[in-house]
């Protein structure tokens, strides 16, 4: 049983989420979400209630319960913040999103699309270490009106193997730690900018990033959790992404360690 009245609410992420529950559980969630903002897109706050025993959480929007999850013991902070972020992006009515990492390089956004575990975070970290500015680790937001990729400054969830694959990590502040995962907000934050390159991270082993056609890249992008998945947003997503990727280089990096290709991806973005 989860009761909202048991604890005072803590606001997080510029009013994007209201958290209820024991302070030792809501505080790290609040810390991870604190840097988050959705520019020019007001969404109703997600109310999140965490049970006192830390085993369950539920999410509400406008008083309607949208989800109730069992909180895993291992990496629970990622699970809860990920659920909140996933809820927030489904509330978007103007912007479109895709599950991806994004780095600003030379005033353009390089967007890294791949399944969980494909190496988005490590590749983004390697690009940041080479001088890129951080846009996002989990969600690439595209503004159809300006045709720009927007920042979504959720701290990077850096696992031990991410750090191993990425090499030197970007300078930044660790806003929270949980198990072996650090939630790091890089010092160099990027700004809204046009798409400069779309990179798909795939499992396998190929020596070079392969050029792929834009429609093929879009097909892959649309398979990710994204606005394409929602019947009332798929047309907006189609129009926005087809417009944004036109004349933009698309590459597939087929490797278990895509961060090893960071130099070449950096050059691709600043071509």
């Amino acid at each position: 049983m989860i009761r909202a009245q048991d604890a005072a609410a803590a606001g997080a992420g510029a009013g994007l989420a209201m958290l209820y529950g024991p302070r030792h559980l809501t505080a790290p969630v609040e810390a991870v979400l604190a840097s988050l903002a959705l520019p020019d897109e007001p969404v109703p706050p997600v109310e999140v209630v965490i049970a006192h025993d830390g085993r369950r959480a539920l999410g509400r929007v406008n008083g309607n319960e949208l989800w109730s999850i069992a909180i895993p013991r291992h990496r629970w902070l990622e699970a809860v913040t990920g659920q909140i972020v996933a809820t927030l992006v489904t509330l978007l009515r103007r912007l479109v999103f895709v599950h991806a990492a994004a780095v600003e390089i030379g005033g353009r956004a390089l967007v890294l699309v791949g399944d969980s575990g494909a190496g988005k975070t490590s590749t983004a970290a390697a690009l940041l270490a080479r001088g890129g500015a951080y846009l996002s680790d989990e969600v690439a937001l595209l503004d159809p009106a300006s045709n720009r990729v927007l920042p979504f400054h959720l701290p990077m969830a850096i696992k031990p193997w991410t750090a191993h694959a990425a090499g030197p990590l970007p300078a930044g502040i660790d806003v929270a730690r949980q198990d072996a995962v650090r939630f790091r907000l890089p010092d160099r934050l990027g700004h809204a900018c046009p798409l400069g390159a779309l990179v798909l991270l795939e499992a396998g082993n190929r020596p070079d990033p392969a050029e792929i056609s834009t429609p093929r890249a879009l097909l892959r992008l649309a398979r990710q959790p994204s606005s394409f998945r929602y019947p009332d947003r798929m047309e907006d997503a189609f129009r926005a992404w087809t417009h944004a990727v036109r004349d933009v280089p698309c590459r597939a990096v087929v490797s278990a360690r895509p961060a090893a290709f960071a130099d070449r991806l950096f050059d691709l973005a600043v071509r």
Partner: protein
Amino acid sequence: VNTARYLGTRMGEEVILLDRRTGRLIHLDSQAARVWDNCRLPGGTPRGVLRELERAGVVTRVSGGYMRPPVEWT
């Protein structure tokens, strides 16, 4: 009122379509796009590609050939 089932974009010689009914994206590579553009004239076009397009649901077999659906282009 827009009634076209497909929303489409040409990118170079290729085409990508959104099936509004199913939410599916359909990619036509350059060969498939050429065949699709001329699908009323199947003579001389690779039958295999037409069959692929038919399987993808973007052409319909009609008397004397194939017909493609109306598309709203972006």
